[in-house]
C-alpha cells in the first residue's frame, strides 16, 4: 500500500520530527511510504492513503493542517489540544476572523466573544491560559478518516468530542538505547529533567521538592536540560531556594548524542506536565529505553505508564510534598531504582518495541484505508442473509446480530 507521509522531519527541531525519523525506516518494511517535502499541499498521485502528523506547534504542523484540509486522510494525533496550532494558522497568518470562526464553531457565541477578547488583548491568550478548556480539535477530527493516537487519554477525548471514525491506539516507539558513555555530571543521586524549563514542565514545583530532598541528601544534584522559556526566571527561583551550582547542573539545548549521554548519567528521571495537551514525552520514552526510573505527573499519557516504571505525582495542593516524597524514596533506595529501571527496559523492549510499533501502525493505516469497504462487505452480506430469513431491521434478532458483530469489531 502506498502512503503519503506528512510530518516534520529532521533537521527540524521537533519531538515529532525525531519520532518520524525513528519510525519511517521501520514502517517502510510494511508499506510503500513517501515522505512529502515540507510545504507540499497535496498527496502525490497514486497514494492509497495520506497520513498527517498533527501536533500543537503551528510552525511544525501548520502546513500539514493545510494539506489535510485539501485531502482528508489518517491523522496521527500527537496532542488533543490544538489551540496553539489553530491560533498559529489564523492569527499567526493575520487572519483574526479565522480564529473567531474557529472558536465559534467549537464553543458557540461564548467562544467567539472570548476570541474577540483575545484579539483585543483584553484577555490573555487562551492557548497559554486555558488551552485544555478550548482544545479546538474538531476541525482536524472532522477531516480525519481515522486516528492513530499514543494514549488512551487522546482516544477518550476524541470520542468524547464526538469522533466516530476508527481510533487506533499505538504506543510511541522506543529508541534503541545508543552505546553512549554517561556524561560526567556527578550527583548521588543525579536527578534529571529534560525539556523546556517552564511552568508547564512544573519546574517551580520540582525545584522546591528538590531543595527539600537536598537538605537530607547533600550529594544529590538536579540536572536541568533544555532552553529556558521566555519569562521564566530560573535564576531568581534558584536563589530563593538556596540552590547553587553545586546542587543544580544546567545545560541548554543539546544535540542528540549529548542528550543521551546526559540522560544515561541520571539515576532518576523526572518528567512532569500540567497542563497536558495529551502529548507523549519523547524524553520519558528515552528514559525507559535507558532503563531509568521515572517520576511523572499523574495526568494524560503519563498517568497511563505502568506503576512499576514510574512514581506518579498528582497536580495541585500536595504536589510538592508528593514529589519530594517520591524523590526521597528513590534517593535512598537504589534497589527500588534498579527494579523500576528493569521494568522500564522491559516496557521499552516489549510494548514500545520499534518493530512491533511499526507493524501496528502499518496495520492501522491499512485498516483506515480499506476498513470501511471491508465493513460494508461484511454488513451487506450479513444483513442480506438476515433479511433472507425474515429478520427485519430493528428487530430483537437484528439487534443481537449487531451486538455480536460489534463484539468482534466487525461493525454492527
Amino acid at each position, binding site marked *: *500500500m502506498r502512503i503519503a507521509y506528512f510530518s516534520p522531519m529532521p533537521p527540524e527541531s521537533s519531538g515529532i520530527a525525531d519520532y518520524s525519523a525513528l519510525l519511517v525506516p521501520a514502517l517502510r518494511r510494511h508499506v510503500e511510504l513517501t515522505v512529502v517535502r515540507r510545504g507540499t499541499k497535496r498527496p502525490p498521485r497514486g497514494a*492509497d*492513503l495520506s497520513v498527517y502528523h498533527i501536533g500543537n506547534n503551528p510552525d511544525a504542523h501548520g502546513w500539514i493542517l493545510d494539506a489535510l484540509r485539501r485531502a482528508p486522510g489518517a491523522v496521527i494525533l500527537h496532542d488533543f489540544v490544538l489551540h496553539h496550532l489553530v491560533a498559529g494558522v489564523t492569527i499567526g497568518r493575520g487572519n483574526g476572523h479565522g480564529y473567531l470562526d474557529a472558536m465559534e464553531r467549537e464553543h458557540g457565541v461564548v467562544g467567539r466573544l472570548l476570541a474577540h477578547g483575545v484579539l483585543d488583548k483584553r484577555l490573555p491568550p487562551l492557548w497559554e491560559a486555558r488551552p485544555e478548556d478550548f482544545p479546538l480539535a474538531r476541525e482536524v477530527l472532522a477531516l480525519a478518516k481515522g486516528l492513530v493516537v499514543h494514549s488512551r487519554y487522546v482516544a477518550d477525548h476524541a470520542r468524547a468530542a464526538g469522533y466516530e471514525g476508527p481510533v487506533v491506539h499505538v504506543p510511541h516507539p522506543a529508541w534503541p538505547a545508543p552505546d553512549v558513555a554517561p556524561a560526567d555530571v556527578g550527583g548521588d543521586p543525579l536527578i534529571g529533567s529534560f525539556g523546556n524549563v517552564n511552568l508547564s514542565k512544573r519546574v517551580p514545583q520540582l525545584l522546591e521538592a528538590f531543595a527539600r530532598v537536598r537538605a537530607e541528601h547533600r550529594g544529590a544534584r538536579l540536572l536541568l536540560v533544555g532552553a529556558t522559556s521566555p519569562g521564566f526566571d530560573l535564576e531568581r527561583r534558584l536563589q530563593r531556594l538556596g540552590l547553587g551550582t553545586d546542587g543544580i547542573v544546567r545545560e541548554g539545548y543539546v544535540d542528540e548524542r549529548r542528550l543521551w549521554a546526559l540522560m544515561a548519567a541520571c539515576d532518576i528521571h523526572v518528567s512532569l506536565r500540567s497542563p497536558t495537551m495529551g502529548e507523549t514525552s519523547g524524553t520519558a520514552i528515552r528514559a525507559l529505553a535507558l532503563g531509568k526510573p521515572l517520576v511523572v505527573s499523574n495526568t494524560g499519557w503519563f498517568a497511563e505508564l505502568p506503576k512499576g516504571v514510574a512514581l506518579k505525582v498528582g497536580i495541585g495542593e500536595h504536589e510538592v510534598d508528593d514529589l519530594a516524597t517520591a524523590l526521597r524514596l528513590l534517593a535512598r533506595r537504589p534497589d527500588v531504582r534498579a527494579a523500576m529501571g528493569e521494568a522500564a527496559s522491559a516496557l521499552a523492549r516489549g510494548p514500545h518495541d520499534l518493530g512491533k510499533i511499526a507493524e501496528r501502525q502499518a*496495520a492501522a493505516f*491499512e*485498516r483506515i*484505508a*480499506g*476498513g470501511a*469497504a*471491508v465493513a460494508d*462487505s*461484511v454488513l451487506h*452480506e*450479513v444483513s442480506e*442473509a438476515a433479511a433472507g430469513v425474515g429478520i427485519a431491521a430493528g428487530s430483537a434478532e437484528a439487534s443481537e*446480530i449487531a451486538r*455480536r*458483530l460489534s*463484539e*468482534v*469489531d*466487525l461493525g454492527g
Partner: protein
Amino acid sequence: MRIAVLRPQVPFARGGVEIFTDELVAELRARGHDADLVSVPFKWYPGARVLTQAFLWRMLDLDEADGRPIEMVIATKFPSYVVRHREKRVWLVHQFRQAYELDGTELGQFGEAPEDRALRRQLQELDRIALGEATRLFATSQNVAGRLARSTDLVAEVLPHPPQQLPYRTGASEGFVLSASRLDRAKRIDLLLEGAALHTGFDVVVVSDGPDRERLEGIARARGLDGRIRFEGRVTADRLAELYATCSSVYYAPVDEDFGMGPYEAFRSGKPVITTTDAGGPLDVVHDRRTGLVVEPTAAAVGAAAAWLHAHEAEAAELGGAGKALADEVTWDRAIARLLA
C-alpha cells in the same frame, strides 16, 4: 463434564485436524465426559467471505443444549475460536495463516489493494479479540505458539497431542524411506524424490493422496526412478502401521508446519525422521542426531540423509528409539488432564 469440541469443516476434505478432533472427542468420552463435536462448514473466499463465515461461529449459542448446560467448549483452529462461551478453551492448531506468515507468498490470499490489506488486518484483529477471550490457551507446537505470540502478543502453553491411533510396532528395516504426508506442494515430497535421484541405495514409498500426485509421479518418471518409488495412494490403518514398522526412516519436511503428526507416528514405530531446518512444528521433536536428521531443505541434503540412515541401521534404530521415548511421553491422559485443569 459436558464438553463441545469445535471444528471448522471444509466439506469433503479430511486431514490431520479432523483426525485430531475425532480422537479428542473419543478420548474425552473414554474418560467419562459427555463430549460431542460441533462442526460448521468453512469457506474463506472470495473477498470478505472469510469474515462472514468466521462470524457464523459468533452467532452460535453453546451455553446449553437441550436444556442442559455445556460446561466447556474446546476450540481448535480458525475460526472456531470466534465462538462465545464462558469457559472457552482454545487448543490452537493454527490461525488463518494467509493473514500472517503466508501473506505475500504464493500461498497467500490477499493482494495489495487497500481493501485486501484491510481485510487481512481485520482478521488479525478478530484473532486478538477472540483468542484473547480464551480462559486457557494452548498451542499444539512451539511453532504455533510462537506465531501467536508474534502476531497477537498472546501467550499459549505448548500442548502437543498424540498421533492417530494405529497398531504401531517396530520391525526390521526393509530399505525404504516412507512419506505419509498428504500429496500437497507444501509437504515438499519432491525434495525426497529428487534426493533419491541423487543418492542410490534406498527406495521410497509414498502413501496418501492429494493435488500434487500427478506432478510427483511425473518427477519420478522423469528421473528414471520407476523401480525405486512406489505410490500406494490411500492405505488402511494396518497397512500404514506396517509401512511405518518396516521402513528405514520417515521423511517429513513441510514448509513451516504447524504441528505435524508424522514424526510422532514415526517415533511410535521406533523410526527416525528426516526433516528440514525450516519445517516448523516438527522441530519441536525431531532433534538432529538425537531423534532423526535435520538438514537443509535441498534435495541433495535430504537424499544424503536418507542414504545415511539406510546404511547405518544401528544408528537409525538408536535415533528411532530416542524418538519413541519422547513420543511415549505424549499421551491423551496427560494432554486431557492439562486441557481440562
